[in-house]
């Protein structure tokens, strides 16, 4: 796969020029910093495979983090506050899902609407103030700084493997592919496609809530403007990982690779001593090269079979 190749190339350059990049400490920091992107990207994989898209995740992310903080501050145990934030995420996701599946509004319209509405709603209520003076147990979920990465890593690993396996091998997972490949055929085959769509949005909402909590507990205060641009990062990771925005194609392993590639580039440029000013251009170029290479590979291999998909976004 082109993405794996790009990661390998980047890795070799780094290993030669800046071996410090592969220190356990740096890898741990990279993992923790990109944990939210990974979790949301897993949810986004489901949504995109089902033929939909969700651009409201950044706003939901910010709201869930603030909600977890406010609840914890009000005296709720941290794990309960975290669970409540996940539930809130699930609620927002279900609202998106219901509007898409039952009201029949295209998902990009629905989530564009919830994205701006939720972001401005949060701005209005918080007026930009941060959640401060959190209980001591909030940071690191009451664990120590050394223990927390292991807990977060195991939780993420379990979730990633569960979704990767479940999407391929469980009936509910196959239903997502069926819905995304051809909704009408899936419905005629007896699948409740509306329920599938609603479910994938509920899942991405929950995962966004979880990502927000796991990110928030690394700090002792919560800013109210978090997650701006998260949707772009996440969607880029998922599509670079090989998912088709037309639906029906993609998977969690590819997404993980996509997240790794995009997460690795930014700090890699600092390690290589490249000026911050060119970072965005290089990121864009790498995305384009990766998908162009992938596109050409596919079109050489299967042009006769592939339907004309020109400009079908």
């Amino acid at each position: 796969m082109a993405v794996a190749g790009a990661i390998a190339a980047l890795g070799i350059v780094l290993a030669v020029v800046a071996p410090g990049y592969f220190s356990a400490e740096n890898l741990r920091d990279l993992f923790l910093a990109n944990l939210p992107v990974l979790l949301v990207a897993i949810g986004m994989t489901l949504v995109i495979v089902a033929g939909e898209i969700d651009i409201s995740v950044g706003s939901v992310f910010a709201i869930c983090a603030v909600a977890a903080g406010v609840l914890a501050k009000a005296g709720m145990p941290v794990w309960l506050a975290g669970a409540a934030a996940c539930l809130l995420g699930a609620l927002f996701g279900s609202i998106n899902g219901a509007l898409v599946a039952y009201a029949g509004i295209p998902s990009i319209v629905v989530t564009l609407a919830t994205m701006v509405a939720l972001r401005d709603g949060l701005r209005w209520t918080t007026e930009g103030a941060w959640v401060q003076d959190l209980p001591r147990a909030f940071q690191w979920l009451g664990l120590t700084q050394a223990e927390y990465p292991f807990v977060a890593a195991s939780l993420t690993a379990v979730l990633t493997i569960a979704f990767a396996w479940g999407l391929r091998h469980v009936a509910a997972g196959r239903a997502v592919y069926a819905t995304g490949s051809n909704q009408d055929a899936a419905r005629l085959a007896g699948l409740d496609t509306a329920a599938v769509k609603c479910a994938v949005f509920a899942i991405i909402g929950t995962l966004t809530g979880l990502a927000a909590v796991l990110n928030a507990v690394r700090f002792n205060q919560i800013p109210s403007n978090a997650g701006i641009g998260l949707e772009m990062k996440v969607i880029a990771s998922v599509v670079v990982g090989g998912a088709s925005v037309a639906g029906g194609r993609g998977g969690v392993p590819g997404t993980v690779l996509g997240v790794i590639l995009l997460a690795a580039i930014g700090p890699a440029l600092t390690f290589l001593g490249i000026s911050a000013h060119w970072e965005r251009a290089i990121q864009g170029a790498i995305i384009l090269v990766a998908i162009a290479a992938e596109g050409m590979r596919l079109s050489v291999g299967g042009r006769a079979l592939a339907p004309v998909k020109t400009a079908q976004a």
Partner: protein
Amino acid sequence: MNKLTSAVFGLASRSSSSGRASGGWALLAVIAAETALFAAVAPGFFTLGNFFEMTRFSVELGLLAVALTPVMIAGGIDLSVGSMMGLAAVCFGAAYRTWHLPLPIAALCALLAGCAGGGLNALLIARLELPALIVTLGTFSLFRGIAEGVTEGAVNYTGFPSRFLFLGQGYLGGVIPAQLPVFVAIAAAYFVLLHRSVIGRALYAIGFTARGARYAAIPVARRVGLVYVLSGLAASVAAIIYVSHLGQARSDAGTGYELDAITAVVLGGTSVFGGRGTLRGTLLGLCALAVLQTGLHLAAWPSELTGILTGVLLLATIAADRHIRVRAGARPIEEEFEVKNTQVAVLCAAILTGSIIVAGTNIWLLRGVTTASRLSDGPPAPAAAHRTVIAMMPKAKGDPYFVSCRAGAEEAARELDVELLWDGPTGLDAAKQNELVENWITRKVDAIAVAVENRAGISTVLRKARERGIRVLTWDADAEPDARDFFVNQATAEGIADALTDEAARLLNGKGEFAIITGALSAANQNEWIAFIRKRLQDKHNGLKLVTIRPSDDDRDKAFAETQTLLKVYPSVKLMMAISAPAVPGAAEAVRQAGRKDVNVIGLSLPNINKPYVRDGVVQTVVLWNTRDLGYLAVYASVLASQHKLDAGARELQAGRLGHIDVRGSEIVLGAPMLFNRANIERFDF
């Protein structure tokens, strides 16, 4: 949007047979309702001048939306248009200012850049058949990235000749914004392309089914490629107009415009799946958004409502449209949309109602005024019932820094019993600042106090406000001196830079390496501070070495991650200087988690969000002035100026609890920057 334009297109599309518009009924009703509502509650909304002003703000966005319509009708999407604007603006600025090319050639350079960018999209999407969403997501980063790389984020091209600025700021015949004809011409060209040509017909076919279109002998790749090239071209035209509107060309031009443009197109009933939509719908969509935004500003309702209402509007309109379509029966493709007489009647009725309300309120107002003046004929003239209105604008509303300024501003407004309108862009956005000032001029406030984001860009509109008899003050950051009456100066850029650099030198004992975490790479303030910091290093602190500058985009989490990386890459760095309010706690947390007790953190930020770190000794010093006092002083000065108790030549003023404040020339000086550290930080709460 301009009523006339949309009406013309509305009538024209009557006989159009290509595709069907939708959102017609629902959107017309929405616009009528908005107009009626704001005409009733927002002073100055229902005037001809305001309608023309609205069109001015909508031109750049409108161009993008118009260009996106055929792209989306052909089943694609272009997320790169906003970034393309940034790149074209930089090309234009560089061509004119750096290479000293004549204006038309510079404009040509920008247009060529637009074509090239659009061409790249076209190549990847139409030839290589890659999904449009991913390709333009990639070029979204690429274009903006090139613009930032070339200018290092910091170069701001200004000093364009006035005949060029006329295009974006002037009026034809005294009322019509100069850029409006350009927009009308381009929209008309797009109308012909989309609704009157074989190519337009082909685009609908492609959007409906690309495969079918190919079997019908339509050159799919060429047609699709064309719309992307045109979209790049339209974005570069928008960039030129944007530059002439703001008087500056910077790499951040058009940030976030892509989503606004898509919102307008989708609101206008264009299907995101392709094959359905009209230009008329897009113009109506633009109109609905523009009316909403301007109306909220004029009514002085919180601008956060814009996002919430836009979201509701999107969902409601699309749902209503779908409901109507489903009820009308399954005639998905060939169904015609016409402006029915009933619809015209409803629209006319709404406008009529609106104008009657306006007329009514005017008569009532007039009567009020005449009564008052009759009363004031009597000897003990009671003060007119008019309550002083002070309009005050921060650079960004959600920023904790400005939130704390607001607290002081409101305190002063209560003391003086004046009405305070506090509104501003939600993020740093020079264009939005201009728009708000225009709205406040229309609303006829007594004084305007602006924290200027872009010096060159806002001065024209501030001068206009002064001409209309409104007192204009700037605070936090200044405009051109002749564009305002007074500048409430909290501390100069040089003062801030010197304070930070001296503090760094003190902590490092005059010798060592340090790194800077800035806000966004293109942030004007931060870049100015960095320039002065470099100067101070050269002049006074030769032993200090600035090893690198990293952006945080004003995001605490990004500042955290950048600092973590910096600590590993540059182990010899002993001091982190964070010069954006959220970046200081971010950098501090990274230093604390890394356990690097040898690294100092200082920066420009607010005491409250840094208290935990100052207490623990992670952050040594926070440099800032008393932001609450700054807001307080700005309101006091505005009120005094509006009552003509503070005029040119004044040497001092009395500002409530702050007592005597010096006025130097036309600058009202708050005082030197303060240093917050362990010893004093607990005494401050903002």
